[in-house]
């Protein structure tokens, strides 16, 4: 009786473990961070891009408008790709674009904006990248849709036409 019982338990444990691992095989092992958030906007004090005056986050996101906080850099190739979509978004009066210049050189960033156009209402510069860590950002390009001092959606990677439609749907 006893000797029959142990192998049965062992087989049972083995089966459970097998099923769990087998199911785990089908799980994606690529980490996809959640894009729908309801987090408060982290407060920051950063230097303005154009002049060295200090800009506080509370002053930027004060009214009931929608904001798109876009992290960009002149050295980032995908940023060039998304720029035309940002320029399109600029025409929309319901939303304001805030540029977050990430670890960039002022001269190169200025000529980037000169060549491709400046879609941003305000640009702040994050020289060492620490402020974007406070936002929970991964790198460039990345955008956060902000409303009533809350991040409602984040876009990791360059913004495309699909994202643009989504933003328009949200702010409608």
């Amino acid at each position, binding site marked *: 009786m006893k000797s029959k019982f142990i192998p049965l338990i062992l087989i049972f444990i083995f089966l459970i473990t097998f099923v*769990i691992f087998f199911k785990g095989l089908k799980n994606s092992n690529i980490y996809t961070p959640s894009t729908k958030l309801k987090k408060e906007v982290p407060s920051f004090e950063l230097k303005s891009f154009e002049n060295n005056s200090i800009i506080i986050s509370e002053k930027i996101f004060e009214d009931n408008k929608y904001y798109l906080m876009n992290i960009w850099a002149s050295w980032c190739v995908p940023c060039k790709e998304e720029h035309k979509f940002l320029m399109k978004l600029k025409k929309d009066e319901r939303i304001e674009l805030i540029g977050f210049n990430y*670890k960039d050189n002022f001269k190169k960033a200025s000529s980037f904006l000169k060549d491709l156009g400046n879609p941003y209402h305000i640009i702040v510069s994050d020289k*060492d*990248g*620490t402020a*974007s*860590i406070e936002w929970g950002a*991964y*790198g*460039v390009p990345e955008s956060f849709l902000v409303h009533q001092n809350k991040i409602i959606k984040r876009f990791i990677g360059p913004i495309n036409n699909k994202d643009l439609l989504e933003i328009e749907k949200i702010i409608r």
Partner: protein
Amino acid sequence: MKFIPIFLIISIILNFNLLKADEIKTENKIAKNLRCLICQGQSVYDSDSEFAISLKLVIKNKIQQGLSEEQIYSFLKMKYGEWILYDPVFNRNTYFLWLLPILIFLAGGAIIIKRFYNKK
């Protein structure tokens, strides 16, 4: 008598160095326990990506602000989710992960003990 102030200054400088060394030690320890989210199989400590460089700077600043190791971990967990920590937290999703090895170990021990007594 001139000797004393010089000695004091030297000892203070040496102590500062020790303090700094301690800071760097915890800084590295924290960076080693964090997963670089945009790299493959690297910790923040190992990586030289822009993300990791900034994150190391943030850790350094937080230590200088007087935050403890635990506070820094929970800050990063809040920003990036649990995935950034190498050490999985004990919760509903990880009960099995943490308890299975112990259960297997106990079952194995029980089998060995049983065999041993049966032989006797």
